[in-house]
């Protein structure tokens, strides 16, 4: 029983990971089929897990109401929209006019507006970050301002060279540095993944 509890999850991870990785290199049909199935299973399991996530959200907000936590009244709002929209989408379908109406007129504007808050946040973040406190910050500042001017028409109107310099920064130092960072990170991802695939990673699922 101890095996089933603490070792089986790890060995299943080894099998899953090894099959998917090896199928990239080796061609036997069985390996290819298994890899394909495992991929399909994971997609389905991800769908299960997401739906369970909605259950977790529901539980937490029900608890907030039960314990009368700060501003718990808004938890009613959340639960109302959560359950109402699930019922609508599951029993009447996503193509029901009311479902689309809510999506187009509430969900979409809410989502787009929340995302656009980024514009305000980045302007204050740059105002603070782009300050030449030391040499590294000065380098950050100069590269940033040149690219800002090179990217818009008005910079082009001040000095056409801004666009050329920006292109150069983006294509040479930026692209090269990003490649270096990416390659190192890819090796890091490979290292972390191999720990799981070789079954050496026991920390995360072996507890209790």
């Amino acid at each position, binding site marked *: 029983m101890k095996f089933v509890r603490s070792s*089986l*999850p790890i060995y*299943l991870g080894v099998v*899953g*990971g090894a099959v*998917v990785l090896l199928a990239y290199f080796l061609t036997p049909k069985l390996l290819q089929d298994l890899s394909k199935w495992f991929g399909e299973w*994971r997609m*389905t*399991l*991800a*769908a*299960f*897990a*997401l739906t*369970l*996530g*909605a259950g977790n959200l529901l539980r937490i907000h029900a608890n907030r109401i039960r314990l009368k936590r700060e501003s718990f009244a808004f938890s009613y*709002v959340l639960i*109302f*929209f*959560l359950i109402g*929209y699930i019922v609508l*989408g*599951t029993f009447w379908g*996503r193509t029901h006019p009311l479902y689309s*109406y809510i999506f187009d*007129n*509430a*969900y979409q*504007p*809410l989502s787009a*507006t929340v*995302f*656009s*808050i980024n*514009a305000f946040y980045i302007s204050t973040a*740059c105002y603070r970050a*782009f300050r030449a406190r030391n*040499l*590294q910050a000065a380098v950050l500042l100069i*590269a*940033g301002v040149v*690219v*800002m001017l090179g990217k818009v028409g008005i910079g082009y109107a001040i000095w056409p060279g801004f666009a050329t310099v920006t292109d150069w920064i*983006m294509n040479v*130092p*930026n692209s*090269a*540095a990003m*490649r*270096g*960072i990416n*390659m*190192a*990170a*890819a090796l890091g*991802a*490979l290292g972390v*993944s191999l720990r799981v*695939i070789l079954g050496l990673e026991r920390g995360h699922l072996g507890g209790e």
Partner: protein
Amino acid sequence: MDLAVLGVWIAAFCTLAVYSFLYGDNPVFKFAEHAFVGLAAAHVAVMGIENMRNRAWEPFVAGQWWLLGALIGGVMLLTRWFPSVRWISRIPLGFMMGVAAGMAARRAIESEFWKQIISTAGMKLDTLDNVLYLVIVLCTLSYFLFAFNDRTRFGGAIKSVGVVGQYVMMIAFGASLGATIMARLSLVIARLDFLFRNWLHLLD
């Protein structure tokens, strides 16, 4: 008032409710936030249920027996709701973690590592830009060498090359930030366009 006009008013309310947060947290934002999180979770759950049905259940019933594995795993995940048997859910979790690791490894090794070496190694050093490009890639990568310290042989030298890499990365980060501001501004422009054109009819 017809439904389309009502829709525009609802959308305008949602837009302004979110922007009110820029001034400070307030009940209108709280309402919008909770409604949105609820709607989003519901939308994802609806998609999830649809996926379970058409991705696993229906093909399985139609004869694709191997999908049984996914269905069993899914049921095992459901044991999380019951504390006494919740350990069962670790079994599919372990499997998912393994498959995720396999996928991450295969993407990392080819497209983000090997192909990048090939692209750099095949570059002719016939222009100043290309020489610079190579030097920058090498310096940046050297910054990420970890298994050394000041007492290690060449430790100091590796560190110095890494510092050059650090400065080049600062150029790259500054450039990325500069290039991003514009993209972010366009998001507000789209919202303002909606408010002025569709809601207030100030633009034509």
